[in-house]
């Protein structure tokens, strides 16, 4: 299996396109960095001296709003805001700390979508290209059954995704440290859960944040992999997956306004962050529900990919 993955890796990294992707990821991170640097120097407002008072005032306002609010979701939201603000005042943790490396890493994590895009491109091509090139014939007449070949290809896609994420994380940390400096003591991230506020190390928080943000891309890469294996067509796989990567969440959000079944759509569940911060897309959804839905989609995608790939008559 290790040898098979080495082969797939070689086929990805011996093509110039892959380096273009990595270069793009780095260049765009730089552009984002330059943008924030420019903003920072533009508005040189240091931390607010009277931040405690400001927060207190904000809390009073929030409490009033909460009393007037009718929906449970809104009330929960206000409750969380107030709890976190209280915690800040009590433990002397100003909200607006100076923009530092970790703030930048969090901002740059938006680029996970870009890493997702590249992963989808690789995933969409990894089976379909072998058919296009005609090399599938020589690949499948080795003493290795088809399932193993497909597994090695899928694992390679995951490895590629991980590599892209690692590049993004490491590079944005390095660039952030260079441009914005390391904070003397990193302010922790405040987590609100069931009425209590807990502190979380910022790096741990960012890693979790990365992990949760990648679910989207992994699911879509898996879908692209499935389409690529079933239809042997990488353009279709790329087109459909990328389209959904950019529009799936919005579409689902629109549908969820009208239909309760929207909660069964993949994209209603890819953002697990909704259970930590903010509110679920459809009322009544829980973390466990979302994870089950994700697992079901995953199994369906993989089953289709493997079933068709194993049965296929190769006449490329």
């Amino acid at each position, binding site marked *: 299996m290790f*040898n*098979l993955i*080495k*082969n797939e890796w*070689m*086929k990805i990294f*011996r*093509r110039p396109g892959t380096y273009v992707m990595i270069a793009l990821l780095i260049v765009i991170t730089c552009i984002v960095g330059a943008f924030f640097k420019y903003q920072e120097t533009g508005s040189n407002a240091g931390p607010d001296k009277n931040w405690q008072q400001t927060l207190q005032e904000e809390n009073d306002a929030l409490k009033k709003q909460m009393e007037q609010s009718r929906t449970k979701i809104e009330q929960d939201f206000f409750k969380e805001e107030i709890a976190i603000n209280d915690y800040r005042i009590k433990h002397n943790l100003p909200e607006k700390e100076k923009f530092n490396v970790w703030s930048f890493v969090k901002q740059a994590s938006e680029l996970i979508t870009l890493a997702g895009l590249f992963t989808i491109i690789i995933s969409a091509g990894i089976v379909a290209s072998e058919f296009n*090139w*005609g*090399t599938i*014939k*020589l*690949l*499948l*007449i*080795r*003493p*290795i*059954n088809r399932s193993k070949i497909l597994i090695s290809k899928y694992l390679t896609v995951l490895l590629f995704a991980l590599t892209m994420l690692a590049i993004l994380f490491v590079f944005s940390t390095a660039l952030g440290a260079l441009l914005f400096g390391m904070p003397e003591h990193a302010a922790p991230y405040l987590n609100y859960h069931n009425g209590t506020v807990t502190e979380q190390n910022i790096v741990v928080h960012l890693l979790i944040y990365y992990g949760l943000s990648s679910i989207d891309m992994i699911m879509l890469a898996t879908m692209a992999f499935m389409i690529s294996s079933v239809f042997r067509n990488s353009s279709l796989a790329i087109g459909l997956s990328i389209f959904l990567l950019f529009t799936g969440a919005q579409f689902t959000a629109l549908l969820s306004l009208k239909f309760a079944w929207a909660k069964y759509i993949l994209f209603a569940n890819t953002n697990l962050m909704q259970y930590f911060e903010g509110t679920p897309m459809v009322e009544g959804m829980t973390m466990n529900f979302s994870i089950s839905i994700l697992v079901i989609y995953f199994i369906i995608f993989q089953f289709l990919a493997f079933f068709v790939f194993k*049965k296929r*008559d*190769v*006449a490329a």
Partner: protein
Amino acid sequence: MESIVELKNVTKVIKGRTIIDDISFQVNKGEVFGFLGPNGAGKTTTIRMIVGLMAITSGDIAIGGSSIKTQFEDAVRHVGAIVENPEMYKFLSGYQNLIHYARMSKGITKEKIAEVVELVGLSDRIHDKVKTYSLGMRQRLGLAQCLLHDPEVLILDEPTNGLDPAGIREIRDYVRLLAREKNMAVIVSSHLLSEMEMMCDRIGIIQNGQLIDVQQVKEFIQGNETFHELEVIPSETALSIVHANFPDAEANLSRNGISVSLSKEDIPNLVKILVQEEIKIFGIKETAKTLEDRFLEVTKEKEAEAHV
């Protein structure tokens, strides 16, 4: 002789159409088996089933005693093949391509790769990207890829397609060498008879998905009488004279006159008769029937049988 590949009543139906119809044959170790048939006859489809690229609708194929259906890995371990064109990863060098395939079989050393590269004569260019290779070089790289794991069965689908005469000859020499020295069983498909004649020990003829004949090449060619070409005018009259006097002989109009299947001893007799009938004779020459004539004959016979 020990058989290594065995097809048993193999049938392939695609979308309701029978592409391969109940084919059975065996190939022995150390033998070059020619798989001969016009385009679209089903050669590639049969080969795809032998190497497990396509499912077999009914029947079975065993390689080295293992069924390609149920013991795929064990069966295909014995096989090296090129199916249709030898497509390689163009963005990799020839060497990287070989490394790629070497990793997929057990126990292939760097030395083995070097040995195979040497054998196919690609040592100079092996580190260049495949996209810079000529068709002949790709064919050789394809051959190298087949030979990495010392297969007992080598399958080449139209290996001489698109090659120049020197390339064709090279392939022919390799094939003979491998069968003789390494005791490999080689299956070569082609739609060109002339090539088969010089390369193969045995030939199976396939037409419209049916295996219509399997014969030793020697018997195949010898199994027919000699022909004589007569350059005569008027040829129609001459033909009817031949028919009248030698009812058993086969006679046809040919380009410059007629051709008849008569033995040498009958020729003086024929000449005498033709001269008496005032036919002008410009020349007579003996022509051995080629594999091609024989092939057309066999296929026609079978067609006729089918229509009865």
